């Protein structure tokens, strides 16, 4: 070590700390707190509330937030149709999903589906897991495509 300069000796612990933090992020993915799978929004008729299916497993309690962005296809691209604000909630393992599970509950925006014209939609849902420390902050993003069909 005596052959290294002071900067180089300072740099080594910094890099090792960075590597350890990244290794910890890999070792502790978001699935340790929240597991979301098979998110789907079913095609629906114009005016009806789209129904959804998904598996949500809250493994351990945490404070979290979620945001939903729904885009509609226009030509070759996608235009944002509605976007919910970031909603903060405590997530508890004994929480259950409503039956039936519908888009109005998920977006927490009852006007969003009412304004939905016929077309093809793309929904992106982002959960942010905050288990009390910035070191454990994780993001879970899931998407689903669905259509609103005119009769």
């Amino acid at each position, binding site marked *: 070590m005596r052959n290294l300069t002071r900067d180089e000796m300072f740099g080594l612990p910094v*890099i090792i700390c960075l590597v350890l*933090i*990244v290794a910890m992020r890999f070792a502790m993915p*978001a699935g340790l707190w929240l597991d979301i799978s098979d998110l789907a929004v079913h095609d629906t008729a114009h005016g009806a509330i789209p129904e959804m299916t998904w598996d949500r497993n809250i493994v351990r309690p945490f404070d979290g937030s979620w945001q939903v*962005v729904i885009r509609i296809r226009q030509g070759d691209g996608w235009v944002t149709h509605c976007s919910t604000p970031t909603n903060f909630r405590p997530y508890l393992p004994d929480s259950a999903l409503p039956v039936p599970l519908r888009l109005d509950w998920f977006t927490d925006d009852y006007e969003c589906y009412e304004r939905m014209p016929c077309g093809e939609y793309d929904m992106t849902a982002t959960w942010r897991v905050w288990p009390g420390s910035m070191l454990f902050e994780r993001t879970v993003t899931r998407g689903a495509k669905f259509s609103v069909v005119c009769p």
Partner: protein
Amino acid sequence: MTAMVDRAEQWRFCFRMIWCGVAFLIAAKLMPDAMAPNVYGQAAYDIDAETWALGFIAAPLLVIYGIHINGRALFSPALRIIGYLCLLGLFVYLICSAWHSPDGFIIVAFGGFFFVPSILRYLRVNIMDAAARIRNDTR
């Protein structure tokens, strides 16, 4: 053969990797769907895109530090070997995940035919360098 033979090449390789990691980090911050599950696979998708980007920054950084202090500290080959092993682990995980995904061919092809062979070659060079240093007890 020592690591010094390929020092500039390894330096460039690692810097390219870091720039890719930085670009991916920016993309992950700006676009929530930067890492599509149909391309990278569900196993990779379950880990944050930011974490993947940080992994591809931190591991080459360790190698670059090992190259920088090469010859002045006995542990410099160990840093490079650990850095390359981390990179290898990241790519193998990514390839295994993308293998089972419908559009993962591009990841499997790039990772399996370009990055992994390069990493294995550099790893071999650095292991030989470490062995030579241990035999000669040189710094």
